[in-house]
């Protein structure tokens, strides 16, 4: 086989199509937009979100516009669900439908407030610990270690026995150990972000510590913080109903799902609806928050990027 000599005439200029090579295959999507897109493809999470929105709206508006008040004793005792009383009435003749939504206000308020307090303390504690490093970090984390070793629910019970049951003692009791988890997660995030090159670059350019925290640390740790917070709320609601069940909840005549379930349980043989309705709403709310939290975690995970 003879080889042809290669000469210049064999080559020609095709003409570079600069626009085609530089064209982006897809529109550039910002991080949060992508998170939103991924979240909206998750059926379970969307279902949870819609359920939550409905529950929150009902909790706001039903007690406002209902013909009964949650503490009204209507003289009809233990009535089964009917056209007048959609969910029936309890042993004092109070309308369970209104009490469910008044209870939703209390349960949601406790859950969200506890989560916000956890967030504030946890973020402060975790970021100070992670940023300071060295001995300060060591001491702060050892304190957290000892506190995690203390069984959570027992502390809460003892505290509520002493503080006397009520809305604010409940929130204090819930957040007294709740922040540790958040602090751990924030510290972990801060430690991993702190050593990235772009932070070093910002520092060499003379950025102040506050600038670093506000512009770099918080935006990057936001995802993990958001997920932890959404998952804290259902566990706070669960603990609240658990404690109400023990008789340490918000005192009468206020309604909370836990107290309603506890009362309903005593009368279950004759009036099952008094347990079933609070039971449905506690479970539905816990489920919805968990679904949204799981959905957020999956949506924020860059490893799942398509």
């Amino acid at each position: 086989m003879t080889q042809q000599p290669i000469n210049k005439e064999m080559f020609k200029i095709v003409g570079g199509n600069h626009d085609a090579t530089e064209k982006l295959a897809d529109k550039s999507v910002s991080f949060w937009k992508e998170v939103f897109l991924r979240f909206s493809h998750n059926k379970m999470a969307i279902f949870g979100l819609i359920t939550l929105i409905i529950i929150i709206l009902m909790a706001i508006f039903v007690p406002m516009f209902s013909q009964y008040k949650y503490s009204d004793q209507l003289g009809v005792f233990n009535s089964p669900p009917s056209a007048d009383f959609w969910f029936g009435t309890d042993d004092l003749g109070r309308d369970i439908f209104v009490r469910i939504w008044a209870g939703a206000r209390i349960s949601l308020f406790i859950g969200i407030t506890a989560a916000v307090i956890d967030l504030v303390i946890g973020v402060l504690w975790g970021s100070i610990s992670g940023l300071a490093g060295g001995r300060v970090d060591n001491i702060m984390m050892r304190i957290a270690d000892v506190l995690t070793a203390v069984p959570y629910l027992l502390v809460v019970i003892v505290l509520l026995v002493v503080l006397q049951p009520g809305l604010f003692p409940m929130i204090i009791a819930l957040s007294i150990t709740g922040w540790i988890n958040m602090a751990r997660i924030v510290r972990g995030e801060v430690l991993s972000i702190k050593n990235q090159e772009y932070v070093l670059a910002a520092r060499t350019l003379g950025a102040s510590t506050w600038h670093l925290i506000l512009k770099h640390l918080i935006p990057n740790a936001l995802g993990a913080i958001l997920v932890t917070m959404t998952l804290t709320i259902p566990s706070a609601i669960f603990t609240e109903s658990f404690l109400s069940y023990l008789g340490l909840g918000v005192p009468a005549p206020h309604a909370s799902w836990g107290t309603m379930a506890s009362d309903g349980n005593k009368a279950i043989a004759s009036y099952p609806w008094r347990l079933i309705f609070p039971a449905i709403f506690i479970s539905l709310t816990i489920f919805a928050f968990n679904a949204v939290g799981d959905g957020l975690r999956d949506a924020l995970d860059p490893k799942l990027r398509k």
Partner: protein
Amino acid sequence: MIKYILKRLMYILLALFVIVTATFFLMRLAPGSPFASERNFPPQIEEKLNETYGLNNPWYIQYKDYLIDTASFNFGESMKYKARSTNDMINESFPVSLTLGIEAMLLAVGFGVLIGVVSALYHNKWPDYLATSIAVLGISVPSFILAGLMQYFLAYKAGWFPVSGWKGFGYSVLPALAIAFSHMGFIAKLTRSSMLEQNNSDYVKMARAKGIGKWTVVFRHTLRNALLPVVTYLGPLTAGVVTGSFIVENIFAIPGLGKHFVQSITNRDYTVIMGTTVFYSIILLFAVLIVDILYSFIDPRIKLKGAKN
């Protein structure tokens, strides 16, 4: 290893000290004297009572006495029921709670792993959806609600199980299931995801390629590795079973320690609350330690050194 255990023991002691101190001062802050409900005391008797319980001493002497008592496992006498000590109460009722708790843990781990394995093997087919729904239901429905509903439907309406009491194995099925259910869901979720992870690994593909049966691969290979996350969950599981027993024992009228604890809360029986809290704390702290040590035996990749993280 020994260094690690010693270090953990030190943490446990510190945590216990925090608990004991906190309960002591909290109980002192609590409004009202323990004898407030019995009003018509002549002052001499009240004086005498305060003397027997050492309530006249300054707080640091009381605190010291309390520390010594606790260190020697003497949790004090009930202030409500005369001549009944917390120790008697624990001796009497703890075996009941222990039986129930072990049953619940076996149920949770056994069925949880089974459900997880089935849903991983039939990934995205109907057994998977069924198992996942059970798991989601278990995580969403609190144990005390489940207990009430099961008591109503399975015991009261259907009559398959005794409604309440503690007279044999049949009596323990529903309560154990109520405590175990939510943990079962969680364990199923854990097992499923780690099984799926293992199923993608080369050694499983190799085993399948050699023609080994599906279930043999599961038991000989996959499950052994997939179970590691489940072992880490044993610590929280113990805590969950203990706290779950508080309410479930009350609902099913089981004479266990959880029932006494809840009763002492309702009665504001401070010495019993303090004693039981400390007792529970000891059990939980050691359960977590044992699980951590167990973990290092099961997974040789984990070396227990002095340092955490």
